[in-house]
């Protein structure tokens, strides 16, 4: 396939970026960040969402989805492991925030490290026994893990079972920036900062040893193992980092939504986030960002067709995947992944 003839935003972007010098790059990045930060002020334009408030939609689903999709992308996109239980880490983060926030008097930023730590511990505990499994077997085990976390929370009294936990405290104000109920711009900016941190972390790791190890594992795990890559170790690393991002997203989400209940952490969330990753362009950070933005935003934008909303959503998934199987913005290294038959052989 000739890459030039391809309708290809990603290559265009990459060529602009590569052609620019350092000052230009800084300028481009800053402009982009400022534009994104100004997004909540565009509520009066065609972007406005009917019924749901636009700035709230930007925080959740859009912002949180982007954050979680970036985290899941470390696992699925970078190292090629199919994780269908990502919601578990989100739930662990959210419940950490809710329980500690209502019981200890710590604020959101102080709880954040705990949420991330618990999610990472869960990631290691799940990863150690299961990451030896491959492909779809791993998928079902992670899926089961996600369901187990939800069911344990649902059936336990410390989590208040199906009633959920209300009155989760909002984050404390940061200087002049106040967190408000009816105006969620500050929440959005916080999410954007967390997204930028995550992107920075992934980009740093990608060009270093872990990134190369993940790439090797994704392309051919056996070959990587033979070449001396400690695959299990790097798989667990990737899993744990993904979990950390999910946990952070959970903490922020609980603090934003003020109320959490087990029914919010179903398998559907895992599937939706996975869809965001693949829809946008698996393995490519910008693709994932675009994918999560669209899939988070779309259902609320088309609320006026409320009845057939999810039907449209499903159809869009099918159509886009069929016409752009590598996602809207595919990853750059276009080597075909040889994964067709590795599982049973």
């Amino acid at each position, binding site marked *: 396939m000739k890459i030039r003839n391809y309708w290809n935003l990603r290559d265009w972007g990459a060529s602009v970026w590569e052609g620019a010098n350092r000052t230009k790059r800084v300028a481009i990045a800053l402009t982009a960040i400022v534009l994104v930060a100004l997004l909540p002020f565009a509520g009066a334009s065609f972007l406005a969402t009917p019924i749901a408030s636009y700035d709230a939609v930007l925080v959740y689903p859009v912002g949180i989805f982007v954050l979680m999709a970036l985290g899941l992308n470390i696992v*699925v996109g970078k190292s090629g492991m*199919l994780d269908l239980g990502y919601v578990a880490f989100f739930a662990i983060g959210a419940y950490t925030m809710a329980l500690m926030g209502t019981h200890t008097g710590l604020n959101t930023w102080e709880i954040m490290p705990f949420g991330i730590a618990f999610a990472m511990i869960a990631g290691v505990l799940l990863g150690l*026994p*299961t990451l*030896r*499994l*491959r492909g*779809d*077997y791993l*998928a*079902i*085990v992670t899926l*089961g*893990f996600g*369901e*187990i976390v939800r*069911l*344990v929370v*649902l*059936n336990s009294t410390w989590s208040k079972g199906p009633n959920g936990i209300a009155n989760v405290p909002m984050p404390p104000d940061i200087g002049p920036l106040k967190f408000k109920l009816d105006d969620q711009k500050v929440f959005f900016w916080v999410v954007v900062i967390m997204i930028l941190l995550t992107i920075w972390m992934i980009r740093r790791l990608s060009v270093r040893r872990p990134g190369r190890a993940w790439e090797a594992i994704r392309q051919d795990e056996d070959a990587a193992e033979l070449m001396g890559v400690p695959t299990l170790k790097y798989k667990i690393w990737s899993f744990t980092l993904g979990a950390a991002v999910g946990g952070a997203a959970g903490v922020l989400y609980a603090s934003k939504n003020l109320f959490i209940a087990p029914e919010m952490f179903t*398998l559907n969330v895992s*599937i939706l986030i*996975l*869809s965001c990753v*693949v*829809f946008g362009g*698996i393995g490519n950070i910008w693709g994932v960002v675009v994918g999560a933005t669209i899939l988070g935003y779309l259902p609320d934008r088309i609320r006026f067709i409320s*009845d*057939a909303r*999810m*039907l449209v*959503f*499903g*159809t*869009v*998934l*099918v159509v886009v*995947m*069929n016409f752009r*199987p*590598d*996602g809207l913005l595919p990853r750059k290294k276009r080597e*075909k*992944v040889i*994964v*067709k*038959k590795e*599982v*049973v052989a």
Partner: protein
Amino acid sequence: MFKVLIDQFWSLTISGVALGFIYVLISLGYTMVYGVLRMINFANSEIFMWGTFGTVVTNRDLFHYTQLSEPAKGFKLVFVLLSALLVSMAIAGITAVFVEFVAYRRLRAKGTNRLATLISAIGISIALSEVMRLLTASRPVGSPRVLEKLILTEVWGANIRLDTVITIIAAAIIFFILERFIKLSRMGKAIRAVSMNEDAAKLMGVNLNRVITTTFLVGGLATGAAGFFYVTVFEYTKFNIGFTMGMAAFTAAVLGGIGNIRGAFFGGVSLGLLEVYASAVLGTQWKAVTVFIVLVLVLLFKPNGLFGEAVQTTRA
């Protein structure tokens, strides 16, 4: 804690086996497609759901049974049941082929991208379930009672009921026919050839598209039959039942060793039993947790499922 299990052991076992046979048929849908494409057919749960509506429509609209009418008897009973079975199988089979055509074919022609195909299948399953939701106005749909649930006999304190017996026997027969089909027929051999080595099969003149469509069709037929038994036993369906049953059947397929027809059989039956025993001992709220823990343990010791190896030759 174990009092219920001991007291009601046989009656639990019988319903567990009946449920298990429904799982067996659904997991055939997963396992056959997996065998050929190495992909989870995420839409199989919705194929099942559409299949259940086949039986409801036959009973209710074709034969005009209502909730208050008497169950059918004699020859008419056989006729109605068989028609419902065939309609369910046909609807599910057509849906399965449709899913292959819309969500899989184009992606397959472009070379394999497993995740894109997975998301495409998820998309079509959302769409299928939403269409049914809109058609039924989100309401549960009951099926009139066609088969009287006679208690045939009592064995060790357990009631042997007609619907359970029919489910177990008929599902076993359908399973056996499919197994023979895969093993002996020309098409079955082609399916097996593709699942062993796609390229080699192609070189040997196997028409890949036809084989894959047939695989989806056969998987759909089995899943549709499961839909019939489900409605016959539970007399109920809803647009969102696919998810739970599909998850369970998929778990069963993995438990038995996905891609393996006999694995689906043992996986399905053991899952049915495991579910009822776990519910009786620990409480139904811990059923799913128990199932997944058992699954993880099995996979840790047998990473390809209970029957994942040693059966390469019979693999679908």
